[in-house]
């Protein structure tokens, strides 16, 4: 008789949204791994139907409090494609600048306040702050600068109000942006110092053969533009997203799972994928930091995602500084868009990976169909595969240690469960 063992976490801590973990082993075999996402479906795609195309960025902003820009930008891009809008280069740069703010605040929160306690052996950031006050102070300031950059360009840091189809309602003055320059310089240094400290952490010896999927761009580390690329050689325009990915509903999750249609493999999106596919296009200081952090050309240890995120924090500061120094007054804050019928696509690199949007408009510009795929939703099967392999190779650990290791493995992905609950359409066929 083989012994049945279950490892369960009823409420995952230090992740966004409501999820649980269930693992069942029989003897020396892992039989079942479920990342259960029971956060309620949120029906954003249904809310969007029947609304004017210009309303989309303000509606999609509400999907997430930490990465609203990803949702606003994907929606705006899709609408611009349908309406045949050609964006001014300086408006694209300003979009990239506010997106740097989003990467900084989102990554700083996860790296230091949510992920680092796992490595230093604390239950949470408050307990960690007692022993590492300077580190936590630095983390809070990094996050605050990211927020300030979002507020400066977007009007406010949570659900920015200044982003629209075609650009912005108002563009900042050169003086307004200059006010944050000193903070950005500090942030770049602080991220570099933090990376050196983090590179000295102990990482579990764990690697997986991932299929990384990220935007790829010939000239830049991708944020708002690129084709969809993968480590096995996929290279397609964003409009092919629905062809290369197949979504399925699994009973234990309110977020659709995704697999690559052709290979049937799960995909891994986010900082590790961006890094693997775009490393040579990092800004100079961030690239040097990646070298010093010992990341090599590709990093396949998900526990080291904390290092990749920190390199990306440095990148976002360096890129923001470049954009800020090149900034000149902008003649028109937005390109006007007139409605047209059609289907359009948008995809940007949210802090957690590719955030895909597809919309169909009628000739009056009313949204008839919407599909939004958040990266956490795509990453679910990859997280489950990590858990499966991790448990299988650590069956000797007692339950509480194994449980803790599993929670850590989930937090490696910085999952945003609330975003991920994009739900299957229900079709009832009656014969």
């Amino acid at each position: 008789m083989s012994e049945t063992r279950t490892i369960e976490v009823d409420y995952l801590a230090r992740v966004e949204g409501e999820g649980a973990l269930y693992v069942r082993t029989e003897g020396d075999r892992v039989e079942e791994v479920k990342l259960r996402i029971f956060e309620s479906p949120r029906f954003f795609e249904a809310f969007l139907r029947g609304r004017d195309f210009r309303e989309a960025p303000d509606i999609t902003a509400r999907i997430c409090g930490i990465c609203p820009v990803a949702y606003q930008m994907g929606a705006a891009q899709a609408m611009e494609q349908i309406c045949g809008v050609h964006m001014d280069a300086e408006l694209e740069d300003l979009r990239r600048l506010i997106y740097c703010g989003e990467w900084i605040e989102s990554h700083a929160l996860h790296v230091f306040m949510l992920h680092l306690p796992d490595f230093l052996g604390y239950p949470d950031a408050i307990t960690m702050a007692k022993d590492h006050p300077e580190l936590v102070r630095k983390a809070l300031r990094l996050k605050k600068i990211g927020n300030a950059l979002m507020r400066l360009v977007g009007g406010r840091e949570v659900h920015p109000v200044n982003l629209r189809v075609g650009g912005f309602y108002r563009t900042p003055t050169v003086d307004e942006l200059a006010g944050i320059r000193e903070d950005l310089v500090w942030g770049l240094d602080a991220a570099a110092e933090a990376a050196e400290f983090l590179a000295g952490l102990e990482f579990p010896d764990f690697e997986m053969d991932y299929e990384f999927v990220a935007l790829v761009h010939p000239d830049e580390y991708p944020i708002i533009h690129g084709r969809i690329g993968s480590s096995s050689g996929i290279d397609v325009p964003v409009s092919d997203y629905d062809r290369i990915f197949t979504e399925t509903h699994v009973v234990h999750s309110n977020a659709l799972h995704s697999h690559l249609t052709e290979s049937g493999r799960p995909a891994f999106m986010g900082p590790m994928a961006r890094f693997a596919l775009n490393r040579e296009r990092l800004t100079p200081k961030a690239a040097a930091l990646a070298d010093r952090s010992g990341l090599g050309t590709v990093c396949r240890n998900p526990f080291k995602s904390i290092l990749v995120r920190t390199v990306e924090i440095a990148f976002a500061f360096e890129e923001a500084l470049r954009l800020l120094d090149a900034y000149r007054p902008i003649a028109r804050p937005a390109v006007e868009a007139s409605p047209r019928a059609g289907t359009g696509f948008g995809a940007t690199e949210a802090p957690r990976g590719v955030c895909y949007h597809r919309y169909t408009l009628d000739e009056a510009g009313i949204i008839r169909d919407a599909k939004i795929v958040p990266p956490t939703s795509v990453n679910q099967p990859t997280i489950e595969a990590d858990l499966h392999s991790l448990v299988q190779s650590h069956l000797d650990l007692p339950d509480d240690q194994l449980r803790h290791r599993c929670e850590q493995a989930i937090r490696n992905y910085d999952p945003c469960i609330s975003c991920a609950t994009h739900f299957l359409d229900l079709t009832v066929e009656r014969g």
Partner: protein
Amino acid sequence: MSGQAAPESLVIGVGNPWRGDDGAGPAVARALAGAPGLAVAECGGEPAELMERWAGFERVFLVDALVAGGRPGSIHRLTAEAPLPVVARHSSHGVGLAEAVELARALGELPSKLVIYGIEPGHLDEGAALSPAVATAVAGVAQAILDESGRRR
């Protein structure tokens, strides 16, 4: 009153004025704007922002909407002398006020006297005004802060 030293007490209203009674904190801050000896601020409750705002103040009053199961307009008064209960949350993306205060305590950044006033909300509807019971409570808390800050040391 020119030449008077900078105020030693600060009132920080936390909350979203566009969400009905969640605006109770900012409403108290606005009611007290210009009161002698008091500085006022409104803030979203992020730990770094709170610490930056209250740096240099001896006494700080935080006012926020607080759901504790009471009737709308009920007033709760807490101090930070003992650790505040930090509830396990299912979201990591917004830091609760209690967590922000405890993080500040861990960093040695608490003001020497921190008083928290919580006002029980009635509704949190978008764009709505304060409900009558909460508007009354706002006036009550504003008066209590005036009394407390006048009665110093």
